[in-house]
């Protein structure tokens, strides 16, 4: 029972979604739209589980008093403050259980935390990529063997476009770079995508047929 019903559910909904794709009729669309709506709603319930996990892990760390036990306190303070700001706000001058008003967010602190804490950290994390792309290039682009050399040469050709001191060979480098990006790139990506498509389709089919059940904890 505990395992059969979920597997039956997977099969029923999987097969329905396949058939739905070929049936343009209204009733099939109607169910399709409902199903997608449901998944969003279930996702919110799952998020509650997630937050619960976050709180539990943080509290456990604080209790254990191991190294860095103080930092989870910051996580919890941030979490509860932001929840407070997210769930209470002013509307028509009174504090209440509000989020949006006609003028925008009902709690300015929610916006401030977003603009001056989330955004700077987020864009700086993203900007770390500039450093990491350099260190990865330095570390990995060594002509160890044929494959690594091909990787290295292709990357150098494309990056050379930015060198203003190439003189007469400049235009050729630019042409070579755009050829690399247009032709072999297209071929390789297409080969990978066809492979991925097949792998995905096979996996999806195995899931629907109940052959692959790794996600239910059973191989």
């Amino acid at each position: 029972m505990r395992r059969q019903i979920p597997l039956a559910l997977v099969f029923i909904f999987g097969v329905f979604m396949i058939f739905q794709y070929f049936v343009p009729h209204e009733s099939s669309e109607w169910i399709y739209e409902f199903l997608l709506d449901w998944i969003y709603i279930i996702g919110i319930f799952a998020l509650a589980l997630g937050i619960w996990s976050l709180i539990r892990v943080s509290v456990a760390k604080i209790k254990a008093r191991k190294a860095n036990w103080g930092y989870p306190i910051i996580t919890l303070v941030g979490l509860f403050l932001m929840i407070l700001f997210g769930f209470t706000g002013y509307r028509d001058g009174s504090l209440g259980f509000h989020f949006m008003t006609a003028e925008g967010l009902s709690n300015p602190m929610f916006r401030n935390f977003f603009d001056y804490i989330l955004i700077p950290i987020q864009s700086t994390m993203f900007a770390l990529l500039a450093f990491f792309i350099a260190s990865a290039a330095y570390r990995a682009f060594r002509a160890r063997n044929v494959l690594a050399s091909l990787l290295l040469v292709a990357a150098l050709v494309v990056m050379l476009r930015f060198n203003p001191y190439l003189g007469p060979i400049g235009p050729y480098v630019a042409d070579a770079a755009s050829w690399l990006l247009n032709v072999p790139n297209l071929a390789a990506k297409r080969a990978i995508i066809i492979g991925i498509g097949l792998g995905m389709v096979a996996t999806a089919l195995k899931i629907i047929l109940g052959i692959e059940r790794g996600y239910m904890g059973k191989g």
Partner: protein
Amino acid sequence: MLDAAFSIPLVALSDIGRVISLMFIGAGLLWILIRSLRAKEVDRRIVFLFIFIAVAAPILFPITFQERATLIVRKVFDKVESLPAGSKVLLAFDFDPAMAPEVQPMADAISRHCLTKGHNVIFMTLWATGQALLTQSLERVVKGEFPENRDGVDYINLGFKAGNENVLNIIVTDFRMMFPTDVNGVPLDSTSIFDDVRSCKDLDLIISIGGGKPGVKEWVLYVGDRVNVPMGAGVAAVVAPQLYPYYPKQLLGLLGGVKGAAEYESELVRQYPHLEERGTPGLRMMGPQTLAHMVIMAFIVIGNISFFISRRRERKR
């Protein structure tokens, strides 16, 4: 107060700063090269430091590199340059604020070039979100830098019309059907710029600047292919590879990303040195890019040198 105190010496300092930072990068790379000749690996923090300086220094003390326009960019420049004064050029600003940092520099450079040459420029946009940007850049470039030019005579702003490629479909045969008036409500018939322009066929050059849909592709398919008017384009870097197939038949040239803008600006400044003081944002934005690319390439070369040396040593043993 504090800002003023800071900014005055900085201007004077910027030359010194430029020299110091370039010397630091150059000498530093040399030192690392010597170290790696002894087969010593570079700590990744050193790589990080160099990247930081290579990006920060050109922002703080504008460092620009001489760009040589590639053929695909120079073709657009040469076309604008070779048209006689008074030619009718249409500039379509098909982008939104999100894309603007990448394509606004080329839009500015091309408008500046056209007006310097004395062309009659028709501005328009297919993007609702592009209208405000168009108005701003008109205020800045056209009215700010060329105050002697008259609206409706030397240039005209048609503004935004909804309908995406359908707008193009109509102006191919008739401008007035889609744009009875310009953005200010002045009837096209009362403007001298439209005296002998009825449709896109009567233009001498069309340049579309954009990066999304509708954009360059739609201009090519719905206008360029249907009338025999040369078309140039400027797009965001990510879109450029998809448009290469249209060059050189359907597009006479293409500016891709900030680099395309920088190449255009350098060509413009070479031809008209007095325009340099009006700003070359493309070249300025290319400063950090060029320096960072060169530093990364230098590190790749250094890494390979130390790799080969250490491998040779191992073999000797």
